[in-house]
């Protein structure tokens, strides 16, 4: 006979089972990305998610993202399965898919997230190549001084990638054929690659050659420091660690003819390390360290003007820490750097050592500030920075030096308004160099922009945008030297008003800037008043019109200078194979020492007789009048051919 106690336990057990069945979501009901028979996805393969009850719910209850793009509209339902057929073939490599649910109380809950691999085949993840080429034959109609009558130009693009899953080779290049020296960069040959990049990856190792940006931006490396060279890297993504050794040109060059590797006089070598040491919270802490050394040939390369005789050499190092605290509301960043810079390279001058550091803190509250019925979202921050008087890095040639000071900012948005306030003070002669003055510089600024959010403006007003921006700065000598006495030396104010209006068929905007500058040391002042009008219209689908007009008046030193620039462009599609473009620009300058007028008029007729063939007839008339008058009229017939 069963014991009463035992039967009570059984009832309790069955009661628990019943409760679990009714209220606990079974493990086998979790959404899942169904695998393919091959074990991988091809670029055109559909993606199937077993979503259970969510599959039958409408798009207002569930959504799917592919690589952070919402693709809910492309879903079809097959029973409990959501089927996604991407609009475009997926690129080989890793992708991520996400399923979210919108609950009845408005929450968004992630119900599943998957990474999946797209491959061309089991053997090859990727094997792709593309190329494109074009030739253009130009014929001058009439005599063109100092230029060939007939010219041939060419362009090409090539890129390719091969990947097995364990290793990858990738390369891309832009090719230019340009026989005329004045139309080529100084380091290019007539047939050359203007840019190229190649990389080889195997496991955690990566070798790169060509244009690249291996440095971490900061005090010793400018943001986007793009240079040609080679680098070798080792990366552990799961540990958030990367180490890269690099050998680059310190001056950027164009053209493969300039070589791939650095030269003795133009090189930058070093090492950079980044790591995210907090396991489980990788995004909350970043530590980076960089060391570099090299030689700089001076401002002799493309795109740069300055001191061509600065054949310097030096080295620099930096250590930076970037962290988020307090549920990512507070961000702290600190960087410490040092440099050793020799202004004449192998010459008799000794290298100058200097240090720098920067500390930055920013705060973003978790919730907006409630002012009555208005919610204000705001954030604020402060920075302290000290750069030694001779702090210089070969990888940051445009960075300033000899500054110490603080800067603070505050931003807020509410009801279509955007407000930004910032200000700060800094001083120079940081290292207290004798006989040099110390100058304090104050800068303050405020910017307010508005565009309607809740209010629907009348049709004639379009979509308006209004803005007000004002900047103030002042300088004062705090310690005399260099012929300057203690006291205020300069005040500058700039105020800009802007208004823009957008319509379905076009847009227009107007900007007025008033600037005033007072040199207290010289007892002089100057003012500048500038206006700019911009207009864009597309009254019909085949016609576009763009107009820009700028005018500035400068009063200073008892003299007045005015300048005016006007640019007008009109394009019209006459037929599916015929287009007309007109352009006219004009510049006027009037001043006590210069009076000049320049006009440029262009007309172009383009015809596409067939695909990949374009015939163009164009002419230009350029006039310049100052002390003498110059005029140039040129007419060309051009044939463009393309292949891919």
């Amino acid at each position, binding site marked *: 006979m069963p014991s009463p106690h035992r039967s009570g336990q059984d009832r309790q057990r069955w009661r628990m089972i019943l409760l679990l069945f009714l209220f606990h979501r079974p493990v086998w009901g979790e959404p899942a990305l169904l695998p393919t028979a091959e074990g991988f996805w091809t670029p055109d393969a559909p993606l199937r998610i077993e979503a259970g009850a969510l599959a039958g719910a409408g798009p207002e209850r569930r*959504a799917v993202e592919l690589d952070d*793009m919402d693709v*809910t509209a*492309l879903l079809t339902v097959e029973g409990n399965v959501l089927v996604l057929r*991407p*609009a475009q073939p997926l690129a080989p490599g890793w992708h991520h898919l996400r399923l979210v649910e919108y609950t009845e109380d408005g929450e968004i809950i992630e119900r599943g997230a998957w990474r999946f691999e797209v491959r061309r085949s089991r053997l090859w993840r990727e094997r792709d190549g593309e190329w*494109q080429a*074009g030739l253009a034959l130009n014929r001058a109609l009439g005599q063109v001084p100092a*230029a060939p009558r007939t010219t041939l130009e060419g*362009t090409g693009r090539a890129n390719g990638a091969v990947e097995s899953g364990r290793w990858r080779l990738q390369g891309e290049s832009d090719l*230019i054929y340009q026989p005329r020296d004045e*139309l080529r*960069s100084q380091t290019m040959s007539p047939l050359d690659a*203007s840019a190229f990049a190649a990389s080889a990856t195997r496991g955690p190792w990566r070798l790169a050659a060509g244009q690249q940006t291996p440095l971490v931006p900061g005090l010793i490396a400018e943001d*986007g420091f*793009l240079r040609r060279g080679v680098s070798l890297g080792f990366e552990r993504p799961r540990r958030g660690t990367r180490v890269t050794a690099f050998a680059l040109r310190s001056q950027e060059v*164009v053209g493969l003819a300039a070589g791939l590797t650095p030269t003795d006089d133009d090189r930058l070598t070093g090492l950079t390390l980044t790591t995210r040491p907090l396991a489980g919270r990788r995004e909350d802490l970043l530590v980076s360290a960089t060391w570099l050394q090299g030689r700089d040939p001076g401002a002799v390369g493309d*795109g*740069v003007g*300055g001191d*061509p*005789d*600065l054949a310097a050499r030096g080295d620099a190092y930096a250590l930076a820490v970037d962290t988020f605290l307090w549920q990512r509301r507070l961000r702290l960043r600190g960087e410490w750097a040092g440099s050793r810079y020799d202004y004449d390279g192998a010459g008799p*001058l000794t290298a100058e050592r200097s240090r720098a550091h920067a500390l930055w803190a920013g705060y973003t509250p978790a919730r907006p500030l409630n002012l009555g019925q208005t919610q204000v*979202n705001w954030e604020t921050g402060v920075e302290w920075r000290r750069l030694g*008087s001779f702090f210089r890095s070969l990888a940051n040639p*445009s960075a300033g030096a*000899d500054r110490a000071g603080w800067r603070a900012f505050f931003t807020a948005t509410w009801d279509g308004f955007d407000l930004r306030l910032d200000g700060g003070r800094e001083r*120079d002669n940081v290292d207290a*160099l004798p*006989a*040099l*003055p*110390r*100058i304090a*510089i104050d800068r303050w600024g405020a910017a307010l922009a508005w*565009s309607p959010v809740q209010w629907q403006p009348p049709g004639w007003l379009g*979509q308006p945008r209004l803005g007000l921006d004002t900047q103030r*700065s002042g300088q004062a000598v705090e310690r005399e*030297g260099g*012929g300057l006495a203690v006291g205020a030396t300069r005040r500058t104010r700039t105020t800009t008003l802007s208004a*823009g209006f957008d319509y*379905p068929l076009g847009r227009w905007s107007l900007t007025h*800037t008033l600037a005033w500058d007072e*040199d207290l040391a010289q007892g002089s002042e100057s003012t500048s008043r500038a206006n700019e009008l911009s207009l864009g219209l*597309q009254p019909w689908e085949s016609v576009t019109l763009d107009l820009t007009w700028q005018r*500035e008046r*400068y009063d200073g030193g008892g003299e007045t200078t005015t300048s005016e620039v006007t640019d007008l462009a009109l394009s019209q599609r006459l037929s599916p194979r015929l287009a007309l*473009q007109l352009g006219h*620009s004009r*510049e006027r300058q009037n001043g006590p020492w210069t009076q000049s007028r320049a006009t*440029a008029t262009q007309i172009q007729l383009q015809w596409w007789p067939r*695909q990949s063939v374009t015939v*163009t007839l164009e*002419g*230009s008339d*350029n006039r310049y009048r100052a002390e003498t008058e110059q005029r140039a009229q*040129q007419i060309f017939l051009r044939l*463009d051919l*393309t292949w891919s």
Partner: protein
Amino acid sequence: MNPMPSMALLFLLATPTAQAVVTAVTVAPGSAAVPVGQTTTLQLRWTVERNADASGRLPAGDEVVSERGEFRDDAGRLLGRVERRLRQTRPVSPSDVFDFRETVRVPTALLYQAHSAGLTRIHYQRAFDDGYGPRSAAAELRLTSAAAAAFGLSRLALSFEGGWLHRLVAPGEALRPRAVVNFTGSGQLRATWEVAEPATTRGEPVFRPLQSVRRYLTGGGEATLEGPALPTRDRGTYLLRLRIDAPETGFAPPVLRYVVAPTEETPTVLKVQSPAVGAPLTPETRFQWTPVAGARAYQVEIRATESVTGPPLTGLVTTAERQHATLPAHTRRHLPPGRYYWRLLAIGAQGDILAASAPRELRVGAP
């Protein structure tokens, strides 16, 4: 016969003229403040005066020459040279004033060398000679900090977005330049972005203005100038430069080149109605467009910059039956407050891009 007049005549003929015909040389400005540790450029005006000699004779020479300029310290020690010859030829007259204008770049290393030697000033001098003896003048260069120095540009670096010095782009592709200037002192920078388009580069390149730049720069340092949207309609080679009108620079304006290359299938421009340029993104923001024939789907892409290379940050894809869309909340969460650019693609049945709109600015405020 008295021999004295004959002897006096012989004496006058035999004795060379002792007094130089160049009577005075001055330079303006006579003094300038130059920065320690940066190159600087001086605009100097040399004035040379010549008169008839004491005997009243007109000089035989009619040319005034200065072979070189020299940097020296207070003790006269040579620090550096500028091997540039200044020369003027003038018809002979009893009195002449010669004006020479010179732009002198003072090398960075020389200024640092002077500072290292404990100097507080150096001198730049020239000697002018018309063949009857030289006279010289010097401008005083006072060493000071970058903020206190005379207004000037020590460096100008041009690049396209991403730091590129040369670009190959498709017709209609967005392209903007950027200039970073290092300057000393304070003053107004006056410059003009100029471009030479294929209509002239096919023959003799002629630059035309795009946009003028007027900006007060103060306290020495560096400044970034964002350039205008560059023309990319016409195919061919373009030359781009930032012409500096003031202050005077001691270097030629750097030039960048970009090429607009024909692509076999350039997507048609897709017309969008909303949202407008610079509109804020809200839950009600409606992306609306004109339908494209043959489209299978439309894709709204949102990026952090105007450049359309690389994958977008986020966006959405919708079917061709719709000509409008709003971003759902889970998509808007990918966009922290800031400025973005969106564009629309029309995608064909084979996954090819049939049409694309130009990038438009979109502002995202804090939630």
